[in-house]
């Protein structure tokens, strides 16, 4: 089976966000595999181990993205592809990303594509469904269980806490939700092997695209931080008194009751 994972690197969830020159400061920040993409990588490896085939992890990024790709290879993916847009794309958006991926997949035989349901940075969740639409294959978002039997695929889909039992078929794109699996940590032998696994580097030129082809359809005109919250009032006294005061404050001062 030809299994592909769409991966993005994101800021470590522990990072504080700082802005300089109107942009998010990335210098010195720790990057990780987008947590939802880790579920996608784990699931891809499990599907391959059960049904055979090959897992290719694809990312659009810069030179630094190699680190996250090596981690994915160390977890057990077979091949990695870095589409390096550092020199060609100044301000991309989901249209840009989809266009590049569409070009990449144009000559690929695809059985299954897995992605995170959102990236925790921009959190638009658009790229998976947009790509599936371009490739004209079905998709199911926010999955929490995946079972493949021949061409038939049985899926549990999380819908705001409810579970939908979905039946569909390959080829298919899915986006992964928390609860799907427990992503493994790379083992030491895994890390050693990953160094020798193939990592292909492409630029948009290799996909017969130029800068105009991947122009964004939206533009970010400003980035800003929310106002700092000041620490509030810690209530005093016995439990009963604190609770009475709290209810009174919520009613009269905060006006939320």
């Amino acid at each position, binding site marked *: 089976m030809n299994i592909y994972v769409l991966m993005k690197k994101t800021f470590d*969830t522990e990072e504080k966000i700082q802005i300089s020159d109107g942009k998010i400061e990335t210098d010195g920040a720790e990057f990780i595999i987008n947590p939802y993409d880790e579920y996608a990588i784990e699931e891809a490896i499990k599907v391959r181990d059960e049904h055979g085939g090959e897992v290719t992890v694809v990312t659009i990024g810069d030179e630094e993205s190699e680190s996250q790709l090596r981690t994915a290879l160390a977890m057990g993916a077979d091949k990695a592809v870095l589409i390096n847009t550092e020199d060609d794309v100044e301000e991309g958006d989901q*249209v840009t990303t989809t266009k590049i991926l569409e070009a990449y997949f144009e000559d690929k035989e695809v059985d299954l594509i897995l992605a995170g349901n959102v990236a*925790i*940075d921009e959190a638009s969740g658009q790229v998976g469904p947009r790509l599936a639409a371009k490739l004209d294959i079905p*998709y199911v978002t926010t999955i929490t269980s995946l079972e493949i039997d021949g061409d038939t695929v049985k899926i549990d889909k999380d*819908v705001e806490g409810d*579970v939908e039992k979905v039946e569909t078929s390959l080829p298919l794109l899915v986006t992964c939700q928390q609860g799907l699996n427990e992503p493994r940590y790379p083992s030491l032998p895994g890390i050693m092997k990953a160094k020798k696994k193939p990592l292909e580097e492409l630029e948009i030129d290799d996909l017969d695209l130029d800068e105009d082809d991947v122009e964004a359809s939206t533009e970010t005109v400003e980035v800003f931080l929310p106002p700092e919250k000041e620490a509030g009032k810690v209530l005093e006294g016995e439990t009963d008194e604190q609770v009475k005061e709290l209810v009174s404050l919520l009613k009269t001062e*905060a006006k939320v009751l």
Partner: protein
Amino acid sequence: MGKFLVISEVRDGELRNVSFENIAAARQIDENGEVVAAVLGDGDLESLGQELIQYGADRAVVVQHENLKNYTSDGYVQAAMAVIEQEDPDGIVMGHTSEGKDLSPRIASKLDSGLISDVTQIEGSGDDVKFIRPIYSGKAFEKKVITNGKTFITIRPNNIAPPEKDESRSGDVQKVEVDVQNLRTVIQEVIRKASEGVDLSEANIIVAGGRGVKSAEGFDPLYELADALGGAVGASRGAADAGYCDYSLQIGQTGKVVTPDLYIAVGISGAIQHLAGMSNSKVIVAINKDPEANIFNVADYGIVGDLFEVVPALTEEIKALKG
């Protein structure tokens, strides 16, 4: 600007709140524009169309088909595209809900249009309109504009106030016939697991528990408090990872991002991942036995104490207040 299509959302035969918020968003973008509300589904949709007009839509378009009983991307995209082709709107507004998140990118892809997802605030109007949305789960915000395609946005529920209902308003509800076929995904069954009543993403009041709640049973007093308040129950990653509750309740950078009027954090230490998911709530109350807990830094009101004493006492007090 001109004509806006707002794509409504139906659950259990009723319009979800965000459907009305969509109308408010469209009006904010263009006060004088025409707002056409679309309802896709099965059953009696015409009365829902009228209701949308009472909430400020100029007219409504409904697509009714048995294959639209459950939401599927394949079914709904056929219905939505038929309406879009008929109306050729300048802008489209949908809710940033499970359904909206699934459907909107596919429509945008078909239209080769830009799409700004998860908008929480609209600034300016007309050609100068800018859309504000959280990034890094609310650790920062960005202001975006559409440079190519339709003014296509999804709005986060609970952030843009819906218009007042005006029962004297009436308008035209038109049925559009679409033969919805060839569904490649089939919903076999829907298992209701979410807490009855209030949906976490639309809740005005949330009571959330963390590791301090100590067990699944430990969540019981939180449910009682949420019931008394008419709110929903959420959780921190710590509580979900420990198996005290379902992952669907998780609030944070992984999990849901919520902005209720009142957020009561119970036994939650306040890790940065959790704060990212809730710190833009209007009023935050923290209940924790550790006075040094980080959650107190973002709380408007704090109670240092044993949650198993404080929460039941609070429930009683709320019940007394509401009579």
